[in-house]
């Protein structure tokens, strides 16, 4: 993996991981595998050392070899546009897979950087492909995860107002935190206001203005980078989504 690795390797030694014991077992790639298959899968997983905030795991242009499953923390992926501006493509939470966008060109398109102290499980894509040939459930899971990505990208490319975009992001995060066993109602965001603005293609001040509006309407409460959802139904309405 990645270019910061000249400093310290991400995978200092081969650490035997136990996917079956992992708290993310219900979210991650091997979730549909049985005990025996999971054990096989564990052999292709490399557990990283702690990755510090600001440390990159992939750089645009890196040769594609590995995909990464987030174990802990949070990552953002971004590209630098032709004006030299950073454009945030997405955020990754524990259990989510980074790197699928690199398959077709065999090169990473995006830079991926840790926003918090994080760690990942590295998976050689070659080994994953190999294993998926033998285990149809794994192949199906890979397709499902990729499809989810595509669906989310399509949904976000719709013509949405700033309110809708921001409400959707909050709904999506709430849902993602909840499925990881965290509170759906109160969470700390690792990303900055600027990152969110870039990701939603809104002006930075719009993020604060809309959040302040949500706050005075009693929908959320914001304290620094912490969000508490006070009125889930209103938020869903704003997001024009049934689930939050």
């Amino acid at each position: 993996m990645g270019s910061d690795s000249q400093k310290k390797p991400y995978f200092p030694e081969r650490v035997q991981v136990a996917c079956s014991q992992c708290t993310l077992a219900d979210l991650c790639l091997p979730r549909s595998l049985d005990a025996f298959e999971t054990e096989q899968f564990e052999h292709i997983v490399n557990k990283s050392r702690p990755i510090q905030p600001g440390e990159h795991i992939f750089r645009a242009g890196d040769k594609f070899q590995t995909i990464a499953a987030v174990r802990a923390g949070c990552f953002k992926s971004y590209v630098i546009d032709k004006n030299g501006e950073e454009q945030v493509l997405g955020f990754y939470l524990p259990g989510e897979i980074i790197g699928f966008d690199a398959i077709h060109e065999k090169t990473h398109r995006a830079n991926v950087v840790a926003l918090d102290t994080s760690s990942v499980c590295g998976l050689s894509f070659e080994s994953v492909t190999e294993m998926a040939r033998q285990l149809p459930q794994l192949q199906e899971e890979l397709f499902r995860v990729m499809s989810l990505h595509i669906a989310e990208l399509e949904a976000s490319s719709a013509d949405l107002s700033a309110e809708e975009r921001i409400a959707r992001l909050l709904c999506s995060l709430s849902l993602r935190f909840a499925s990881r066993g965290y509170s759906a109602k109160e969470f700390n965001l690792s990303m900055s206001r600027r990152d969110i603005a870039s990701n939603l293609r809104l002006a930075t001040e719009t993020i604060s203005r809309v959040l302040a509006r949500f706050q005075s309407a009693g929908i959320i409460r914001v304290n620094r980078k912490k969000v508490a959802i006070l009125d889930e139904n209103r938020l869903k309405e704003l997001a024009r989504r049934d689930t939050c």
Partner: protein
Amino acid sequence: MSSITTSFPTELINKYGLAGPRYTSYPTALQFHEGFDEEAYRRHVQYSNDELIPRPLSLYVHLPFCRELCYYCACNKKVTRNRQGADLYLEYLEKEVEMQGKLFDSDRQVIQLHFGGGTPTYHDDLQLKSIIEQLSDSFLLSRSNSREFSIEIDPRTVNEERIGYLADLGFNRVSMGVQDFDPAVQKAVNRIQDEEKSLRLIEAARQSGFHSVSLDLIYGLPLQTAKSFEKTIDSVLTARPDRLSVYNYAHLPHLFRAQRMINSDDVPAPEVRLQILASTVSKLVEAGYVYIGMDHFALPEDELSIAMKDGTLQRNFQGYSTCRETDLVGLGVSAIGKVGNSFSQNLKDIGDWQAAIDDGRLPVWRGLSLNGEDRLRREVIAAIMCQGQIRFGEFERKFKIDFSEHFVLELELLKPLEDDGLVTVSDFGIEVTPTGLLLLRAIAMKFDEYLINDVQGKSYSKVI
């Protein structure tokens, strides 16, 4: 907060009138250290920009120059009639403003601005205008009516016309140094200013549309007596300023060179000092002023009095304020900033400060990152200083502590104060009594972790 007592607790003030900080910040500047450097400051600014709804900004601009030395002064100042140094200072200040402005996201509004000194009005109108323009180029200055843009003025350096000009520049609050009108006292502190002119300027400020006119007085100055100071108060009351600050003069000639010009024998004895304070407090309360806390009084219709009633009062380096929480940017030599969970202070020597700016560095001298315990205690102390009460439940919810368990030692230390009637303590909270209001510092000190750990504090000014 309950209103101030009518009977003056001389004995208690004698008892608790020991050394103590003013808690314009917690931890106090004594805890600042040089390990907190420019890089640390930049990091805290970045965090503050990253917040989902960043706080609005306050700017403090330190203008240290004075034409003459007031012998009581303990501020960081530079006394000179040579204008070149001051002109050069402003050039550097503008560079610093530009550098600082770049750090903060451009949508963060400045809702509070304060020019302090020194003597800001040492500089001429065009110079002040140029500072405002630079600030306005580098920061987003609020255009709202509710913004608090204030300037300290020395009545000796302004006339009615200048007051009008300051209003045109955008200032809407003014605080005026009066100290004492008695000619003998004025002479003893080397600050001779005309009583009638000072009063006229207050009126001029009102005419020019300043929202709030504040006067500073000092008691405990050489040659003062209860009687002589009463005359000053009577005179001041004829102009009925919106706010009054009555500061205590702390005679510490070993720390402040200027004070060595004062004959120590002329400084009123502690009991005289207390008489002065007692008669001042009763006169102001009689005249309808509300005691806000510490050294501050305000008319009942003034925002400060209203905020005190609502429980929305804030405390910052300028004393009390009604602004919601801001990040404070300190500009100029020795200026103190407060960004997120940090304090920072600029280099205090003009030469060092300029050298840093020449190198393209922010002139950060020292500072402090607050840890979790500091943040908790900062809020406890603010509740004492601003609300006159602590509700345990609020702190237990917010900081996930059991108050009486967490502060078991502090509550023990508070017992003698409870016995003396400064506070009442129940299972739900602590309430400052009317008597205790005069001794807020002594109460707050019981929650100051650094003082508890280091019970010396000789260099503080007296509580009263």
